[in-house]
């Protein structure tokens, strides 16, 4: 009944199963999964952007599958100690052609398996050669395959700045991964990279994006901005240092997101810890990051430079416990900024409270009915003058920590506010 003819240029170059396995297994440790931030329109062809992002599946490790995360090649000339594709290890090597990547993307996309492509690569032959291959692929995907879905492109450090600019015309988002939170650790563990080789292109992209916007030029230039990723637990930096770097990256390079990845040992090396670092630490960093970006917190309020975030309670609870003189707040009067600082009250709950209290004086009963989670919040609020929490600080801390343990496993679900915040990495609280 339908006659959809395949476009004549379609070459039917289906990637081999084994190549796919090799190129995706090495890409999976990049934790950035988001497909949000781009409203790219369909201009004939296939696909468009969904500004809120979209999760297509979830793997048993609880992570969302949104993009086809794949390397062009895992055959690397660099030798980063923490990486399973480093030059000095003996693993099966593979590379894919631009056509194979494009067809895989389009065929997965039209079956609604994915929201787009996350293309990365090991440094194959040279940084310039690798970057050229990446740019060629995305350009092909956009122009010949007419694909308007989401594309996240990983930048290769030390590649020609012209290639970087060209890439940005076709990708929705680019990222240069900091990987390690200090120059010293970078020198030790990723000897061919340095801070400047990562920061330079980031600054270049920010500058060019500003110009592009100021001049209202046609087309798109990284509509979803830039992100980066840091490995947590492979090197000795404290959470305080990591978050300060995060804050300055948001400020200086205008990054959209910083991702944190718990260190997982995939190769043995005397310079690296042999054990996986705690997933809970990664989670606390995401929570703190969320507080910085959306709740108006300052890094100084959260953790001193030479310390880690507490593990027993989340960073907002920890802050509230240090500032008990500010609590309890009356939900019928507190301004939005203060409601957002109450442990357990997230953006959605705060909005509900603001809306409902215009009509009536809210009681605890009302809050329950409105599905505001009170387990933590009750120690920090009064509703219509009534307080149902625990007054003793130590007891509160105990209760909050016990609540955390109960939640473990389903940790984020109770905090789940908007469907768009489905990512396991949001850290909203």
């Amino acid at each position, binding site marked *: 009944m*339908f006659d*959809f003819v395949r476009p004549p240029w379609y070459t039917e170059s289906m990637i081999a199963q084994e190549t796919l*396995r090799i190129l995706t297994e090495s890409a999976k440790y990049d934790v950035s999964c988001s497909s949000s931030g781009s409203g790219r329109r369909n201009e004939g062809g296939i696909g468009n952007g969904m500004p809120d992002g979209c999760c297509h599946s979830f793997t048993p490790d609880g992570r969302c599958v949104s993009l*086809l995360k794949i390397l062009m090649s895992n055959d690397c000339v660099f030798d980063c100690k923490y990486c399973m594709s480093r030059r000095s290890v003996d693993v099966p090597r593979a590379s894919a052609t631009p056509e194979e990547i494009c067809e895989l993307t389009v065929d997965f996309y039209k*079956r609604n398996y994915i929201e787009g492509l996350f293309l990365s690569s090991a440094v194959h032959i040279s940084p310039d050669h690798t970057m050229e291959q990446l740019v060629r692929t995305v350009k092909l995907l956009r122009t010949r395959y007419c694909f308007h879905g989401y594309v996240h492109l990983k930048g290769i450090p030390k590649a020609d700045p012209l290639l970087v600019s060209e890439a940005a015309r076709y990708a929705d988002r680019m990222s240069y991964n900091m990987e390690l939170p200090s120059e010293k650790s970078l020198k030790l563990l990723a000897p061919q990279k340095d801070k400047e080789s990562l920061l330079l292109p980031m600054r270049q992209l920010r500058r060019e994006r500003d110009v592009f916007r100021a001049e209202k030029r046609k087309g798109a230039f990284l509509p979803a901005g830039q992100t980066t990723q840091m490995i947590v637990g492979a090197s000795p930096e404290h959470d305080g240092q990591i978050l300060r770097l995060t804050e300055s990256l948001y400020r200086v390079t205008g990054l959209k997101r910083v991702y944190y990845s*718990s260190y997982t040992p995939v190769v043995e090396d005397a310079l690296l810890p042999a054990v996986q670092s705690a997933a809970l630490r990664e989670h606390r960093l995401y929570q703190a990051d969320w507080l910085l970006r959306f709740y108006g917190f300052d890094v100084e309020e959260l953790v001193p430079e030479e310390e880690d975030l507490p593990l027993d309670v989340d960073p907002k609870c920890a802050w509230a416990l240090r500032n008990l003189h500010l609590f309890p707040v009356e939900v019928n009067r507190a301004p939005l900024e203060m409601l957002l600082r109450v442990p357990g009250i997230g953006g959605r709950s705060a909005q509900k409270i603001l809306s409902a209290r215009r009509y009536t004086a809210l009681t605890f009963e009302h809050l329950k*009915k409105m599905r505001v989670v009170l387990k933590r919040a009750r120690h920090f609020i009064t509703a219509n003058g009534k307080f149902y929490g625990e007054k003793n600080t130590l007891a509160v801390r105990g209760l909050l920590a016990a609540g955390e343990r109960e939640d473990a496993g389903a*940790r984020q679900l109770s905090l*789940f506010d908007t469907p768009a915040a489905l990512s396991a990495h949001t850290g909203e609280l």
Partner: protein
Amino acid sequence: MIYFFDGSKAAFLTAFLLAYRDEDALLTTGSHQLTLGQKSVFVRADAQKAARCEQRLLQFDEHCMRDLDLLLRSGEEMRGQTAFLYFRMIAARKRPVRGELAENAVADASECIRRVKLEAHRLKGFVRFMECASGALYAPLSPDNDVCDLLLPHFCARLPHIPFVLHDVRRAKAAVWDGAHSFLAPLGEAEIVLAADETAWQSLWRQYYASVNIPSRERIRQMKGYMPVRYWKFMPEDPSAAIGDLPFAARNASDAAAQDGAPHPRGSLQSPPAPRRP
């Protein structure tokens, strides 16, 4: 008095007019068990009355019909009553009540609407198409709420040149895009001929799904929280196999979901159903 209605908007509005002043009114679409002495009436849609009722309600709240549409799509047994209590409050207060979340009627309605929207949002990601030999795409789904046509604008915008069918197998209907028009149509059983390379793409996808998982960080509760088990059965990546193969029955969260079987991708997509504008 119990007012039975067929779940349509017109029948609801007709019933609403009848029931508005009845303190003990219960509006329902289901098979409600009558207790002794309880009176009931089956309300048929009356186009004129419904239009009058709609006009009146729109004067109080210009967006309220959007809420009604979503409420009536809900798969919850009590949707009729939830909608009734919410609209009775709009009518009593003669203004929008949407923000008054401390009221039971509003809280229930807004929760019901949230669930319908959440499912539509989730399905934008969880729908899986198969490619037919003709090049058209076919996706079976079995949503809790009646949302398959809510997905049409989303997929039309991203696949404008590829005809596709979103088949709600539980309600035996389909939302169709033929490359030029979108419409809703009744569709019982679909027989489809798969494209020659469809199984190969599915197996590449299964390979991908297996490769990106990090087994040392297993968090199955979280996985199931984000992607409820009832959506798994039409996914070629077969998440249940990935976590150690559950028996098929256990994959269905609700009885209704257990009833509808997966269509067999064989034969041909028969007699295109007569177009009916939604």
